[in-house]
């Protein structure tokens, strides 16, 4: 099962950066995100997988597809990238993969022996809103402010100006 999911992830992510039609790239990205949610299900983190499905696969991909439809013609195809950029990109990727994989495979990880914590919604909710040990209330509040700021910024940036001299 794991090898099926990882095969889907690798093939679709490779196709998503090499296909010449932009809408297909978005659909391949959707496949990658769904397979990642499958990996989280396999690791027994149901809440993380649900968040991945709703926010990434449901939210961000739909947003990307909307913006593609607003800014492109459906039949638009990309030109091939020029050769120096292609060589530079592939070279950077292969050097990075080699470096990181030799580091990972030469290091021996010690698996945790502690008993497994049952991850259910009450544990997650209590830890997310507690201020004591293992509490995450500060990043929770920070990210709420960040989301509010992003919402206002998106509205302000994408707003159409009616009249250049009129006040907002």
């Amino acid at each position: 099962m794991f090898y099926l999911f990882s095969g889907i992830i690798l093939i679709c992510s490779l196709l998503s950066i090499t296909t010449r039609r932009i809408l297909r790239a978005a659909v391949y990205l959707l496949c990658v995100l769904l397979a990642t949610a499958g990996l989280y299900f396999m690791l027994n983190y149901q809440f993380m997988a649900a968040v991945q499905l709703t926010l990434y696969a449901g939210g961000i991909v739909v947003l990307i597809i909307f913006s593609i439809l607003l800014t492109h013609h459906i039949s638009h195809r990309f030109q091939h990238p020029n050769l120096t950029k292609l060589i530079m990109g592939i070279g950077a990727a292969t050097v990075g993969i080699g470096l990181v994989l030799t580091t990972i495979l030469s290091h021996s990880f010690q698996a945790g022996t502690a008993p497994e914590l049952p991850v259910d919604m009450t544990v997650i909710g209590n830890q997310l809103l507690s201020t004591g040990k293992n509490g995450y209330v500060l990043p929770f509040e920070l990210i709420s402010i960040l989301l509010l700021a992003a919402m206002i910024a998106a509205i302000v940036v994408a707003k159409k100006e009616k009249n250049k001299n009129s006040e907002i």
Partner: protein
Amino acid sequence: MIQGIPLEHFLVVSTIMFFIGVCGFIIRRNLITMLMAIELILNSVNINFVVFNRYLYPDQLQGQFFSLFIVGIAAAEASVAIALIINIYRNVKNIEVENVNEMKF
């Protein structure tokens, strides 16, 4: 070891996915496809956090919370980036990166 799969296999998958994202960020010239490459990179980092949490510290939840916050930040980033892209499209009429250089100071 969970279901007979060692930790390193997950790390290999997420590493290759990360560098596919980096490669796509370099070779693409369209703003939306560059945004998709960034999503690939963030997603591979999420896999790393969750897998380390599951294998090395199964009695805690730090990795899961980190990846939750990363998902939230990615959503905010995508919304602002798409607003910017639509605004650029209104002014320049396409969104290839070569045509956006008039934003330079």
